[in-house]
Each structure stands twice: as structure tokens, then as C-alpha cells.
């Protein structure tokens, strides 16, 4: 007899609906899964068999064929287990299949018949919703994120038996509360507070500008000067996600399987800090099963490359695409997968291997060639994509009295206000605006434009540099609550440009 159930599979960061067809026929007893099933899917044979038996059902001693349609697209993951098990019960007349209509079944089965969570539940449910279902049965742990997909009743379940009884109409799985509860935005963030940063007023200023407009920022300087501390402080400065952005972020994190339920429903912007030994694939995504990389996990948030020059230079260069386009494109024989990756880049690095090059009153003992090679790890095109570069000197060598520094919360308030202004103007942070949108915005008057062009000539700046400086100047005015961009704003933006390496 024939039966089918609906589940879903992940491609990139998107789900695709999968129809699970089961045929139980006379023949040599066995369970065959077809439809480009990956190894995790093939192993469902053993899990499903044991889970059915241990839940008190019978595994028919027949020839069972499972087809995952569309059969031409590769399927991955363990989320099909529940749909396969249920369809087998229907096909072997142990369950009435009428309850399966307009229901998606998602979940991994344990051998004892309990349901285990799967990564990407949100994307899976969203895909199934697109296929016109009314309800989705998911593992209890995936309920919260699944509920963020609107228009679908989410019924969390703990065991296969519960699911079967619900489908048979014997008992009802309670629907998950439809209104998604966001995590408490006031919950403390694991980030250093700016109040603990002594001096460094210029770097603080640059950090505030960068976060407010989501511009790319690099902090350079000798070891121990507080580059990393400042960069990490950005986590607590980022304005909250909008609902739409939160949905995008949650889906990516859900697919990557890195997030707990709290994080996936949070309005907090992602702040990713990959280690410098990371591979190119792990940084931008890819692999045999295409998984989102750190660049995508930082989508709508920040990607901090601490000690950026220690990263493999091919990994660094792979970030050029996403920095320009906001997406990572991975081409495969069977198609192109686009992973969203719009992040602000934060980078810290030493000016040379010993760390003291160009620092007043200190000697660098690196040889010229060594230093040049070190600095060249950040390629010209990558350097070009930085909006603000701030060389830090140690506060103790400076002359600043450690005054009462401003706390992160105060800075975050100003940033949130500037963020709101940008959203009202263009619906996006300034860093994402085209040069035209910036220069034609009402506040960018002829004076500011003329200054920008004059500095380009006087300081020999490229057009790309001027575009980037224009965006930063726009953010500086926004932070100040002014619609008009002043010539001082332009000059300040240009002061933070990456400088040509000293020869």
C-alpha cells in the first residue's frame, strides 16, 4: 500500500519541502531509501526501525520503499525520520492517513522512539508552510524557533507515540503559543563595558561611528593596548535587530545548528569572533553539505577578526565578496547557493610582527621585508574595503588622564538613535547605501560634496575611498542628530581612512 507525508530538507540556508512516499509491497523484507539521500538520511533506516519497534508498533516484514521527492535534489539531515516512520505506519495500515493532510512532520528519532531536535527547524517549517500546510509537528526543543514562522500551527511533541495518537485523533498535541516571546533585551551581554577603557578617546569615537553606520573598522597598534577590548565592546553597542532581520538571522543560525533556542529568538545582533586558524570554508561557508560560515552567522551583526593578519590570507580575501554584495555565493555542479552575509567587519592587528612599528618612542626590530610581508597579508583590496582605521597607542605612553569614561549603555543609546534615523531615511544602515543614495540624500549639500571631491584631489584618494568616506560622514551627521552633513563631518571621516603603508 502507498502512503505519503510531508517533511523538509535544508539547501544552503533555505528549506525545501520534501514529500516522503512509502510503498509497502510483497517481496524480500527490507527498507530502501531513494531520492538522493545523504548518509544521515540513509541511516534513518536503522533509527526508524528501532523507534517503531520500541514505541510498540510493528515494522512490516515486507519490502518497504521510501522515496524522497523531488528525487533529483540532494537531501541531508535527520529531520526526515519522523515523516518516514509515520508514513510507514500508514502504508502498513497501522494508522489512518487522513490526519496527515496539510501536516508537516519534522524531527529526528531516537531508538527508543523519542524525538530529538534538528538544526534549521525554522527554515524547514517555513519551507513546509510555503507548500501549504496548516500545522507542523516538531520536536519540543525546536518549537520556539518554529513558532516564528507565521500562519502555521506548531505542535511540539516529545515521542513518536504522541505524534501517532494525535494523528489518529486519540489525543491532541497542544499547539505552541503562537506569539513568539523574544528574549529579554536587557539581559546582560557578554561584552566588556566601555567604562573600563582608559583614554583612547579617538578610538572610542571611531568605534561609535562604525557601529552606528555599520562601517568596517580596523584597530591597529602594539600588543596590550586594548584593541581587542574595544572591538569586543562593540557587541553591546549594536542596536537591536528589527523583526524582519531577526527572522533572517534566526533562520541562518537555526540551519547552522549553532544556536540555542534563546539566541535564535533574540533581537540581539550576532557578534561572531572566529579564531584565526579558521579555514576559508568555515569562514565564508561551503563544505560538502553547504553550511553557512562565520560570515553568514554574522549576518546583520558584526564579524570580529581578532589579530586579522594571523588569518590565512585566502580566507581574508574570500570575505571581499560578502563585504561588497552582502551574500556568499557558492557554485556547485548542481546549482548556485547564495548565503546571506551582510555584516560589519571589525579587525584588530599589530602593525608588524613585533608590534611596535611606527609607535612614538619605541623601536621596531622587525626587518623591512618581514614587516612588508606581514602587512601585505591584508591585501590592498581588503584594505580598500575598510572604512575606518584607527592606530592606537598605549594609554600609558599618552598624556591622557584616566578620566571617568562613558559607559557602553550611554554610547549605545546614541547609536540606537542614529540607527533609527538611518532606517527612517533609507530602511538600511548607511554602510549598505549606494554612493548615489548617499550623495543625493537631502542632507549632503554642495559644500560637503565639494569638500569630498577636493580632498580626493588633494590627498589622492580613489573614488571608492570617497564613496566610503561619504557614507561615514553621513553617519557622523546622523550621530549628531543633524540632517545636513557638514564639511567637518567629511574631514573627520577622511581622517579615519586607511593610509598608504609607509615605505
Amino acid at each position: 500500500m502507498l502512503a505519503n507525508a510531508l517533511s523538509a530538507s535544508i539547501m544552503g540556508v533555505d528549506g525545501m519541502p520534501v514529500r516522503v512516499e512509502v510503498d509497502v509491497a510483497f517481496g524480500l523484507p527490507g527498507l530502501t531509501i531513494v531520492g538522493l539521500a545523504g548518509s544521515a538520511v540513509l541511516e534513518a533506516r536503522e533509527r526508524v526501525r528501532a523507534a517503531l519497534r520500541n514505541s510498540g508498533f510493528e515494522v512490516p516484514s515486507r519490502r518497504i520503499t521510501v522515496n524522497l521527492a523531488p528525487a533529483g535534489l540532494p537531501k541531508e539531515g535527520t529531520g526526515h525520520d519522523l515523516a518516514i516512520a509515520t508514513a510507514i505506519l500508514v502504508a502498513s495500515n497501522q494508522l489512518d492517513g487522513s490526519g496527515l493532510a496539510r501536516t508537516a512532520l519534522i524531527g529526528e528519532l531516537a531508538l527508543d522512539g523519542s524525538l530529538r531536535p534538528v538544526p534549521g527547524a525554522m527554515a524547514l517549517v517555513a519551507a513546509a508552510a510555503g507548500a501549504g500546510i496548516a500545522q507542523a509537528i516538531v520536536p519540543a526543543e525546536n518549537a520556539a524557533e518554529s513558532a516564528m514562522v507565521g500562519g502555521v500551527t506548531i505542535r511540539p511533541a516529545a515521542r513518536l507515540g504522541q505524534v501517532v495518537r494525535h494523528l489518529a485523533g486519540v489525543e491532541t498535541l497542544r499547539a505552541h503559543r503562537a506569539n513568539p516571546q523574544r528574549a529579554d533585551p536587557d539581559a546582560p551581554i557578554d561584552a566588556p563595558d566601555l567604562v573600563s577603557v582608559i583614554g583612547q578617546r579617538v578610538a572610542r569615537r571611531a568605534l561609535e561611528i562604525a557601529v552606528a553606520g555599520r562601517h568596517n573598522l580596523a584597530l591597529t597598534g602594539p600588543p596590550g593596548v586594548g584593541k581587542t577590548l574595544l572591538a569586543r565592546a562593540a557587541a553591546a553597542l549594536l542596536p537591536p535587530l528589527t523583526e524582519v532581520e531577526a527572522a533572517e538571522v534566526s533562520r541562518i543560525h537555526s540551519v547552522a545548528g549553532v544556536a540555542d533556542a534563546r539566541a535564535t529568538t533574540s533581537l540581539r545582533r550576532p557578534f561572531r569572533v572566529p579564531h584565526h586558524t579558521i579555514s576559508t570554508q568555515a569562514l565564508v561557508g561551503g563544505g560538502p553539505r553547504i553550511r553557512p560560515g562565520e560570515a553568514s552567522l554574522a549576518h546583520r551583526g558584526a564579524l570580529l577578526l581578532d589579530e586579522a593578519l594571523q588569518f590565512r590570507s585566502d580566507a581574508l580575501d574570500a570575505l571581499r565578496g560578502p563585504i561588497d554584495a552582502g551574500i556568499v555565493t557558492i557554485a556547485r555542479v548542481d546549482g548556485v547557493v547564495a548565503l546571506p552575509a551582510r555584516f560589519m567587519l571589525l579587525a584588530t592587528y599589530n602593525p608588524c610582527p613585533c608590534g611596535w612599528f611606527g609607535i612614538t618612542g619605541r623601536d621596531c626590530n622587525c626587518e623591512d621585508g618581514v614587516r612588508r610581508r606581514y602587512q601585505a597579508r591584508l591585501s590592498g583590496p581588503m584594505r580598500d574595503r575598510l572604512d575606518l582605521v584607527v592606530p592606537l597607542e598605549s594609554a600609558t605612553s599618552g598624556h591622557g588622564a584616566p578620566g571617568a569614561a562613558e559607559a557602553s549603555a550611554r554610547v549605545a543609546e546614541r547609536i540606537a538613535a542614529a540607527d533609527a534615523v538611518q532606517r527612517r531615511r533609507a530602511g538600511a544602515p548607511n554602510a549598505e547605501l549606494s554612493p548615489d543614495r548617499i550623495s543625493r540624500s537631502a542632507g549632503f549639500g554642495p559644500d560637503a560634496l565639494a569638500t569630498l571631491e577636493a580632498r580626493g584631489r588633494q590627498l589622492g584618494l580613489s573614488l571608492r575611498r570617497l564613496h566610503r568616506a561619504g557614507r561615514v560622514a553621513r553617519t557622523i551627521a546622523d550621530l549628531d542628530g543633524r540632517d545636513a552633513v557638514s564639511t567637518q563631518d567629511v574631514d573627520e571621516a577622511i581622517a579615519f581612512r586607511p593610509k598608504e603603508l609607509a615605505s
Partner: protein
Amino acid sequence: MIGVGQAGSTPSRTISRATERDAWIALAAVPGIGPAGFARLVRHFGSAAAALAAGPTEVAAVERLAAESAAAMRKIGAAGARSVAAGLQAATRTAGGRLVTDLDESYPPALRTLDPRPPVLAVVGDAAAFERRAVAVVGTRRATGYGMATATDIADELARDGVVVVSGLALGIDGAAHRAALAAGGRTVAVLPSPIDRIYPPRHRALASEIARAGGALLTEVPVGAVIGRPDFARRNRVIAGLAEAVVVVEAPDRSGALLTAAAARAIGRELYAVPGPIDAMASRGCNRLIADLHASIITSTAALARQIGVLRGRPAPVIGGLSEVEGQVLRQLLERSGSIEELVDRTGQRPASVASALTLLEARGLVDAFGGATFHATRPARGLTGSI
């Protein structure tokens, strides 16, 4: 006040300015009397007119005179300085130029710092070329491709920065420098070892007229009609160095004429730069030795040269007026001591935003530079302006 000579200071023999000018032109045209001899005669006799009036016998008591020099002086004595000067001026005009004496306003200001200096010059072209910042680019006539390319780069950079490129119109490096300056739309000055009606080397005649057409100038000490045997390169090279604030030797083998220019630059206190070459390159041995002996600063890139000289591409001459309070404050601090933005924020007590934008404006005006690093420095032009801030 008039030139080196104390003309008019001897009350008994008051000479009109025009008469003295004619006397300068006539006396300077006497072969064998160089700028040093000329200066000695004027000092001894009180004026050039007096020296001519004294005649060759009295002059010979002061200055060793060759037979031809004495003959020339006698000729002037017979015809009169006035008619000799008029003849020279007419001949110069016919050749497309004019005579400029040390007594004239239009005498190149940079040469006035030389002592002794050429009393009379023949000039073709625009005298405005002498009013601007100028750098000499010189080198061997037997240049390699490296030398030609480097000379071209350097002259191009300088011309784009608005600097007048001075050279000697010779084949090789000199020609490359003049051509690059012209191609970049800049002005260039050629100091000739020959009269203006007999361009040396002849192969550069077209180049010479192009230089004069394009806002530059040809300049020589040698009067029109002078019979020249071997051109006097040493005298020419001293004028080249004198016209420029810095001399760049691009490529020079041992015993190159360019090394004479280098020596002249050192003698008269002009900055000297040399482009290094491979240690086994004969064509660069002179340059390498200048660097090794610490006579010349090494040039590692054209941009580095522009930085050292204090000009950068596209930067207008620094204008000190119109600085805001913060900008003035920041510049004053940097003139006192270099520092990072962070330091300047502390030292000026201004907001980081104001200090950052002030630095950009000062940098755009060529008054400060960070040379790619964290520390900002006041540039040479800014130091030259200390009095007016």
C-alpha cells in the same frame, strides 16, 4: 640697491643706471672673464663702466687677462660700451630672447643667493618659471633604460606637483626630465652651455623651442655670437644647481658631468638627492658613491622624494590663511612636537571629532603628514610658515 657692484657709491664718478647696465652687458661678454672675475673687477673699480674705462692694462693689474680678453676689451673701448651692448641685445632679440642682468628686477631670484653669480643671462621664454619652486633633475648622457624611466617618473611627479623641473638640455637623463615635465603639463627650465642661437646639443633644438613655448625658459650665460670651443659645462651646472632648491642626480657613472652639478649643489647649499642603482651598474656608480659618502640623500620612490621635498601630488602651495581655531591649535602643537591624534586630543583639549577633521584639512593643505603611520608631523612648508600662524 644695485647688484654686487657698488655702482654709484663713488661720489666722484656718478654713472647712470642705463650706462652701467650697458657696461655690464659689454664686460660680461668679454671672453675669459667669469662671474668671479667680473665681481672682482666691479668691486675693485666701483662699477663695470669704470672697469671698461680703465682699459685692459689697468684691468690686467687686477685680473689675469688672456690675449683675446684684452683684445675684446680694446674693441669695446673703441666702439663704446653702449653700442656693443645694443648690438648684443639686438642679436639676442633676433634669436628670440632677451638679456637679463643682475641689475634687473627680472633676474632669477634663486640665483641671487649665489656668490659670485652670472652678471648677465640670455633668456628665452617665460620669466615666471623662475618665480616658482624648482628642482633640478640631472644625470648622465649615456643613460640606461632604468635611468630614463626613473628620470621620467621623477620629473613627472614634480611637474604634477607644480614644481619647475630644471635641467641642462643634454642627451639622456636631462632630455628625459624635460620631456616628462612637458608631458605632464608642467614648466621646465633648460640651462644651456651654449648661446641661445646655437642650441647644444643640436638634436634637442625642437625640445628647446617646445620648452620655451610651454611656459618654461631657456637660459644661458653665453652671449649670442660668442665663439665657443668646448662648452663650459662646469659653469652651466652651477647655474642649474643655483636655480633649484634641490638637485636630484638620477644616474651618473664615475666622472660624470652630473657629479659636477652635485658638487656645485653641495658647495652652494642646495639639497642633494641621488637615485641608487645596482652595485654592479657602471652607470650608477657615481650616484651610489654620493649616497655611500653621505653626500646625497637616497631616493627610494618618487613619492618619497616629493614628501622629502615637501610637495605631494595635486597639493596646492600651502595657504596658511583661513585656519580655524582648532586647526591653528593643532598645527601649533605639531610644530612643537609630532604626535598621534589621541595625543593631540589631549594636548589641545579639543574633541576627537574636531581634531580629526582639522588634521584632514591640514593634510589636504600640505601642512601635516602622517607618512602612513599613526604619528602626525608638521611638513616643511608648515615649518616655513611658523612666523605667520
